[in-house]
């Protein structure tokens, strides 16, 4: 079996063999890593379980971070959507937003998380998969299928560009995480392989050019709240794709475009905290205060 390097290859192979994307991917992983498919699924399940415990941990603590910039927001969201009946994000979306912020806050506290694809974007995929599981009653098996699907999306993109804010900005971190989550959501809703890929690419395309300008160089502002936004963004992309909306520019070309934008982006906007939010007066004050002691 040969490695799969593009979305078009992934779709062609899956559709030809009448398989879903997760089935193709777990077969490929088993072959490449010299394991069997059950072992691949078990490793994925182990990561899913860690994601669930990061959510629980993140929701159980509410404390201000050392820099004073974050740590209390997951609880605010939790309170708003607890026992509510008449809010726009009732049920699924409120849960997704809360979980995504909770995991990111847990990450900031030096808690245990699963990088997905990076630590700074670790809330997005778990929040979507776990919330769908809870709201719609998807089994653990189905959630593993979704996580493998998300992994397939991330892997295809990672083979074309480096998934790091320092290399391609936040589009490569939270943007890719959102694409991964969108494809996972379509898998859970039993969309087609084509819809899975288009959901991912619609999500990615919509955040092209997103910069990485963290205040004081910390994985906090705007990262934590962005995890909340981008998880909901993934649901929008998945719903468009499930309705049959497709990206006009083919998926692999979109990835190349995102990569190009990453190259063109100023290094000052790629994790170096020299421009954007990080260079504002307030950010400079926070940075000075924080690094004083």
């Amino acid at each position, binding site marked *: 079996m040969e490695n799969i390097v593009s979305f078009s290859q992934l779709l062609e192979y899956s559709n030809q063999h009448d398989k879903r994307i997760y089935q193709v991917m777990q077969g490929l992983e088993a072959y*490449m890593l010299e394991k069997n498919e059950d072992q691949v699924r078990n490793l994925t399940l182990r*990561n899913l379980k860690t994601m669930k415990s990061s959510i629980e941990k993140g929701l159980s603590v509410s404390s201000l971070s050392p820099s004073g910039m974050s740590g209390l927001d997951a609880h605010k969201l939790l309170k708003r959507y607890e026992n509510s009946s008449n809010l726009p994000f009732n049920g699924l979306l409120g849960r997704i937003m809360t979980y995504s912020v909770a995991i990111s806050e847990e990450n900031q506290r*030096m808690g245990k998380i699963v990088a997905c694809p*990076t*630590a700074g974007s670790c809330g997005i995929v778990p929040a979507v998969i776990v919330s769908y599981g809870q709201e719609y009653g998807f089994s653990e098996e189905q959630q593993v299928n979704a996580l493998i699907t998300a992994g397939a999306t991330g*892997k295809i993109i990672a083979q074309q560009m480096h998934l*790091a804010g320092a290399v391609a900005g936040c589009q490569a971190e939270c943007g890719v995480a959102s694409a991964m989550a969108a494809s996972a959501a379509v898998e859970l809703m039993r969309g087609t392989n084509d819809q899975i890929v288009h959901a991912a690419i619609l999500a990615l395309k919509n955040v092209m050019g997103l910069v990485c300008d963290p205040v004081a160089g910390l994985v906090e502002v705007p990262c934590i709240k962005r995890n909340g936004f981008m998880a909901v963004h993934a649901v929008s992309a998945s719903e468009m794709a499930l309705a049959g909306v497709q990206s006009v520019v083919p998926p692999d070309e979109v990835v190349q475009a995102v990569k190009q934008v990453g190259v063109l982006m100023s290094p000052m906007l790629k994790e170096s905290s020299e421009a954007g939010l990080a260079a504002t007066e307030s950010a400079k004050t926070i940075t000075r205060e924080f690094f004083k002691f």
Partner: protein
Amino acid sequence: MKYISILDIIGPIMIGPSSSHTAGAIRMGLFAGKIYGKKPQKVKFKLYNSFAKTGRGHGTDKGILGGILGFDVNDDKIKHSYDYAREAELDYEFEYLEKHDRHPNSADIVFLDENNKEQMKISANSLGGGEVQIYMIDGFLTEIRGDYPVLIMVYKDQKGVISKVSALIQEQGVNIASLNCERKEKHKEAVMTFCLDSVLPDKCIEQIKKLPDIYLVRNIERLEE
């Protein structure tokens, strides 16, 4: 090109908040500790550039210290590395520096004895995504990454060492992924590092140690995840 697994994308399981500044720092410490190969008494950490500037907010200090103590990237103990260092009677010191000829995320780990005499100095870069590179040991350039088992040797530069060692490796049926040699001067100390497809058995390491003028041999397994 290295195969990118979905488990590289959905993973590693790690202590936050940053794969380069936290997980990378932990792996640097862990790797350096294995290369040093014995219980350290005192360690001086020199953190450079972004590691120095934003390290504390990312737990880079706790990470690199925890790595020296043998903690892995997913170990909850990382958060309390300072306490565990005290418990292990490990003396440590941090220095924060800015140097433009160094990688943005870079550190020196200097092992000292009780009289502050330098025993070994290891320089490493955090490449992103938790990947690290040990690029210098005691002034010798190396090219060691945590994604392969490695054999590291310090020996007296002389004819035939490479062929003798590689013959012993071949006897074990182990494939060599890459080989890197560096010497300071002819017939002086030299360092050789092999990245291997599988880890060598102890028996083979004993044979390598018996070769003439071998000063140090380290056989290190692949860093997990």
